[in-house]
Every structure is written in structure tokens, then in C-alpha cells.
């Protein structure tokens, strides 16, 4: 055996001894004794030591016995490794080798040799013989007894292993606990899904729970603005009063991890190695050691960003905690979208109800019956582009068989427009003494309504006509409204007549000129709103006043009564518009001097 040959190294959980013995029985004896001592040091019991010594002696002696001249010059190598569960030996020789028999039987009892292989096989649990050119390896393995004596290195290994297992168990327990807390929280929040809870309060509670479970020290929640152009701050936790965070535009020069996460759709981590940029708005509220920003989407639409921060620089968020962040925030995103949809449905329902109310008001304003004013006959129509428009008309019988005609267009739609129409109607009706002075009537109505109209930045265009059957004329005044259109039998075309002043609600003190227009037999006059003249065809071309004059002339020439004329006129307008929907209300009063 070489003096320097024994060497021991630690390899994972096994220790290894390698010996080289010169090819002699005495050297083999010394080597096997060295192995025995080494194994004894590993805590193997006496029975195992005896078994290993005998097995190794049998194996190594064979290597000596069958060595040729050349092989005798080379050592017999014994490698033995000791693990927690077994011991493995490798005997390497340089003999010619042999074929390991399939069955190793015991020879006759009085045979003087041939028991070596039987002994080897009987003493160990596993035998492998690897025969190569110039080198053969016999591998022996024998299990260690379960209750063998332990020695210090193995105890250390066991302790290390135990510590690893304890750490893993602690991690698993912590993850299990956080998962349990998460589930409990999510079940609790699930009961609020679809309910019309306060979104900020809900988000606040959810974010606080998330911070506690994920062991975060601070958090920021931002939501996309309604116009989709910026991230607006919903929550900053902990919520000290001095913590405020301005909105940040999605497109801009600001270097922000929130914008980056939203743009790239991936989480962004920041910490000592990759800190927040100096211009990052989060710096103002999140002086953290570590953090993660998560952008959340629903149906491929950005909903917002959530950022968690931790003050300790050496403790970044674990994968399990990041999963928690995703789970909680994705849950929150659904609630946010649900809340928005709920709000929109509520607004839609309220609006629908408002429109119904306004429609009822508007219908109540319109005359239920067109009064007679011979030799004039009248027809009227009011078609709304929406459910409720700003147009209205009124026909007020006055003394002596005269009529006051009112046609108006209140800026805007819905309930406010309907209410102002009602107020205008009442205001005009309250001044019968001014019916024959439409200009003064408009000026007085303007003074009356101006404070209310200007307060809400609204205005009204109106045309008032005093129809006098005795004098067979019409006196009109206009407050920013469409002109009166008149067609006579003896004229080559219909014409627009009258001057116009400011709409009601623009100037408090304004005057309105009056125009007197004779309406001889057969003549037709049209009061209308701009929904008629601004009708558009499929090409987007507007009809205009001239177009309406042509239609009036055509309808008047084709008919003799206003009711039929109105139908002709509206039919021609419908032809012009084709299948295009109404873009504005269409209201008219058609006056005809019947023969």
C-alpha cells in the first residue's frame, strides 16, 4: 500500500476513502484493515465491519491471485464510500478478468477452493462486475443497519437536513396561512360583488388586507381616467394626510414604473439595484427598499396599476406574495369594472326616466287641437330627433278670432329644455295684451327669462306670429329664429321674410323688429325650426333655406289645404333625407289662406 495513498473527501452526503495497494496479499491485508478502521470510524457495527473486511479480502485476494506479470506491477485499488443508508466498495484490478457466473454455488464441502465468490455474494446486498480491457471493477454495496451508531459528521448532515426540512415546512406553513387568509378575504369580498358598494372604501379594505398578508409597508392604487389618458390616484396607503400623488399622463416624458408596467403589461420590480427614477411620482409617497408595480387589465383594457412597497431593502417580495398581489388586484379589477357598469346602468336608467318626464312635459305643451281662424287654416307637426327635443310650438286663440302662433327652439335637450319651453309658453300666454305686438312680446319675454337662462348658459330662439284673419295678414317678430317663409300664387317662388334679433337669454335689453306680411287667398306661410332647413341627405348635403323654399312652393302648389300640404312637405323632406336618421327636431306650423 502506498504511504500517501489514503485520502478522504466529502462528496455530498457520502464520504469516500480511496486506497491503492501493491499487488500482494500482505498489502491487501493492510488495505482492508485500513478500510475496516475507516468504516469503524463511520459508526458501522462489528458485524458489518467483519462482513466488509471479509468481502474486500476475498475480492482483493482474487485480484492478486489472478494477476499476470504485468498486472502485478500495478496496484489494486479499493474505493469505498459511506453514505447514510449504505456503503459501496469498488475494487479495481488489472487482471484479465473473468465472466461473473450467473449463479454462484457453493462447491463440494471438501473442496479446498472456490468459495470466494460465494462469500462475496453472501456478504453484500449487491454485486456488479464490470470487465474492461486492462481494468476490471467489482462494485459491492451493502446497506447500513438502521440503528447503527451515529458519529459526528452524520449528525451534522442530519442536523443540516433537518434544518432544511424545517425551513421548507416553515415556508410552506407561511404560504398555506397566507393562502388561507387570501381565500377568506376573497370569499368575504365575493359577497360584495355586484353590490353597489363604495368603490374607494372597498378598494381601501382590500388593499389593506393585501398589504398585511403580503407583508407590505406601503401601497398605491391608481385607476385609468374616464378619458383613458392618465392614471388617477385612488389610494395611497398608509394614508397620511401629507401623502398626495398627482395624476400621471399615460403618454408623456415622465419616467414612471406605473406607466412602464401599463405600457409593457408586465410587473416592474424596483429596489436597491434598480431604484425608482428621480422623476418617478412614486418617489414622493413610497420611500421604499423594495417594490413591485402591477398593471391590471380587464377584457384587454387597462383598469389601473397597483404598487406595493417594503421598507427593508434586503427583503424583496416572494413569488407567493406576488401571486397574492395578482390575485387580489385582479379581483379588485373585476369589482371596479362591475361598479362602473353599475354606475352606467344607473345613469342610463335615471336618464331614461328624465327623458320620459321631459317627453310628458313637452306633450303637455303642445296644443291638443288646432283652432279655426278662417279664412286661414293651420296644420302643425313636431318630430323629435331624440325622445325629447328642445322644439315646441303653441297656437293661442285670442279675442276677436285672432291667433298668436309661437314656434321656438330651446338650446339643448331633455328635462331642462322642456322646462324652459314650459316657462316660455307660460310667459307668453301671460301677456295677451301684447299679442298684437310680437316684437314687444319677445322683448318682454326676454327680460323675464334672461336671468334664468343666463344662469344656466342656455338660450332660446323663437318666432312669434300674430295672425289676423280680418286684415288677412301676419305680423311676425323673431328672436334669432328661422325666418317666415311665404308662398303666393302670383309669385314665381316662395320667399323668406322678416328680420331677426338676438335669441332670448343673450342680451337682457334687446328689441325685436316686427314684420307685417299680407297673406292673400291661396297664400301659404311656414313657421319652422332649423331642423327642417338643416336636414341632410345621404351625401351629407344640407337642404338649406332655399331647398326648403322649393319644397314649400311645390307642396303649396300641389295642395289647397294645410293638412295635406303639411304631409306633402314632410314627405318631400323624408325623400330628401332618405334613410338618414333625424339629427335635429323638426317642428312646423303651416298656414294656408284657403279660397
Amino acid at each position, binding site marked *: 500500500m502506498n504511504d500517501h495513498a489514503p485520502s478522504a473527501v466529502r462528496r455530498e452526503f457520502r464520504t469516500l476513502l480511496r486506497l491503492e495497494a501493491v499487488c500482494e496479499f500482505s498489502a*491487501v*491485508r493492510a488495505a482492508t484493515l485500513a478500510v475496516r478502521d475507516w468504516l469503524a470510524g463511520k459508526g458501522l457495527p462489528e458485524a458489518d465491519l467483519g462482513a466488509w473486511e*471479509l468481502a474486500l*479480502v*476475498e475480492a482483493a485476494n482474487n485480484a492478486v491471485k489472478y494477476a499476470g506479470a504485468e498486472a502485478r506491477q500495478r496496484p489494486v485499488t479499493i474505493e469505498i464510500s459511506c453514505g447514510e443508508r449504505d456503503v459501496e466498495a469498488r475494487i479495481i484490478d488489472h487482471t484479465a478478468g473473468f465472466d461473473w457466473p450467473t449463479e454462484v454455488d457453493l462447491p463440494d464441502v*471438501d473442496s*479446498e477452493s472456490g468459495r470466494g465468490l460465494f*462469500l462475496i455474494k453472501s456478504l453484500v446486498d449487491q454485486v456488479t462486475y464490470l470487465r474492461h480491457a486492462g481494468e476490471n471493477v467489482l462494485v459491492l454495496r451493502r446497506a447500513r443497519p438502521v440503528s447503527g451508531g451515529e458519529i459526528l459528521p452524520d449528525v451534522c448532515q442530519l442536523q443540516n437536513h433537518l434544518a432544511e426540512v424545517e425551513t421548507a415546512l416553515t415556508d410552506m406553513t407561511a404560504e398555506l396561512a397566507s393562502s388561507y387568509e387570501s381565500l377568506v378575504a376573497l370569499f368575504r369580498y365575493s359577497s360584495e360583488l355586484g353590490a353597489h358598494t363604495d368603490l374607494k372604501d372597498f378598494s381601501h379594505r382590500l388593499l389593506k388586507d393585501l398589504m398585511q398578508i403580503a407583508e407590505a409597508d406601503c401601497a398605491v392604487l391608481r385607476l385609468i381616467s374616464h378619458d383613458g389618458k392618465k392614471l388617477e390616484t385612488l389610494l395611497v396607503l398608509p394614508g397620511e394626510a401629507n401623502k398626495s400623488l398627482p395624476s400621471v399622463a399615460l403618454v408623456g416624458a415622465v419616467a414612471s414604473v406605473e406607466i412602464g408596467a401599463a405600457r409593457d403589461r408586465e410587473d416592474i420590480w424596483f429596489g436597491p439595484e434598480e431604484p425608482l427614477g428621480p422623476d418617478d411620482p412614486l418617489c414622493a409617497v413610497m420611500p421604499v427598499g423594495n417594490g413591485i408595480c402591477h398593471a391590471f387589465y380587464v377584457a384587454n383594457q387597462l383598469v389601473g396599476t397597483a404598487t406595493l412597497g417594503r421598507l427593508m431593502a434586503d427583503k424583496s417580495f416572494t413569488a407567493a406574495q406576488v401571486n397574492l398581489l395578482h390575485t387580489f388586484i385582479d379581483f379588485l379589477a373585476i369589482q371596479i369594472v362591475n361598479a362602473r357598469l353599475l354606475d352606467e346602468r344607473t345613469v342610463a336608467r335615471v336618464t331614461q326616466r328624465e327623458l320620459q318626464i321631459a317627453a310628458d312635459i313637452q306633450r303637455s305643451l303642445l296644443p291638443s287641437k288646432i283652432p279655426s281662424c278662417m279664412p286661414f287654416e293651420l296644420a302643425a307637426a313636431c318630430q323629435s330627433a331624440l325622445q325629447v327635443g328642445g322644439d315646441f310650438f303653441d297656437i293661442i286663440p285670442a279675442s276677436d278670432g285672432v291667433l298668436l302662433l309661437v314656434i321656438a327652439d330651446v338650446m339643448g335637450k331633455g328635462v331642462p329644455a322642456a322646462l324652459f319651453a314650459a316657462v316660455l309658453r307660460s310667459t307668453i300666454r301671460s301677456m295677451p295684451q301684447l299679442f298684437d305686438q310680437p316684437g314687444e312680446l319677445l322683448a318682454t319675454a326676454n327680460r323675464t327669462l334672461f336671468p334664468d337662462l343666463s344662469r344656466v348658459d342656455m338660450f332660446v330662439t323663437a318666432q312669434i306670429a300674430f295672425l289676423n284673419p280680418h286684415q288677412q295678414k301676419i305680423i311676425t317678430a323673431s328672436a334669432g329664429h328661422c325666418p317666415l317663409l311665404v308662398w303666393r300664387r302670383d309669385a314665381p317662388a316662395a320667399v323668406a321674410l322678416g328680420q331677426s334679433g338676438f335669441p332670448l337669454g343673450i342680451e337682457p335689453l334687446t328689441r325685436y323688429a316686427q314684420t307685417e306680411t299680407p297673406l292673400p287667398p291661396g297664400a301659404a306661410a311656414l313657421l319652422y325650426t332649423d331642423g327642417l332647413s338643416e336636414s341632410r341627405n345621404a351625401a351629407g348635403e344640407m337642404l338649406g333655406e332655399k331647398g326648403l323654399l322649393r319644397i314649400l312652393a311645390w307642396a303649396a302648389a300641389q295642395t289647397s289645404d294645410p293638412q295635406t300640404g303639411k304631409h306633402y312637405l314632410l314627405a318631400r323632406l323624408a325623400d330628401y333625407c332618405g334613410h338618414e336618421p333625424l339629427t335635429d327636431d323638426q317642428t312646423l306650423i303651416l298656414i294656408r289662406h284657403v279660397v
Partner: protein
Amino acid sequence: MNLVADSDGTLRVTGLDRLSASNCGDFKQLVLLRLAENVRVVELECAHLRFIDSDGLGTLITIHKRLVTCSGRVRLKQPLPVVRQLLRLLRFDEIFEIIP
């Protein structure tokens, strides 16, 4: 190792702690030489024989075969458990006289 031949034809071998390939050749030679002294029994004191291998056992078989020709035998006295276990494994307890 000591070999003492008694007048009753017993060759007592003592002081042997190991019988293996490394020393069994010498052992065999010494014992066989003494067999000429009317030895009928070779008694191997085994109380200190800690280790014996297949070569050592083969040597005992050789001596046994010699003794059988003159109605003699090999006697193993007080073998250690590990040796006794080995003898039983190899069925040598059938041919050797074993004295516990």
C-alpha cells in the same frame, strides 16, 4: 502461532488471530510437517481467531483431508461467533469438530 503435539496424537495450534491468504500458506506447511508425528487431531484454538477467509478455510480442508486418511479430524475450539457463523454458512460445521 504455536504448534504443540501431545502424546495423545493431538496437535494444538494456538496464538492464531488470523488465517487468510496472507498467512495460510505458512500455516499449512507447518501443520502438514507435524502430521508425520502420529498426529490424528489438529486442534485449532479459535478463541482469538478473529478473521478467516476462504483461503484459510481451504487450508483447513486440506489438513482435514489428510487427517481423514488416518481417521483423524480437525477440531475447532471455541470459535468466535463471527467465525462460527461463517463455518455454518459454508457447512463446515458438518465436517469439522467444533467445540464451543
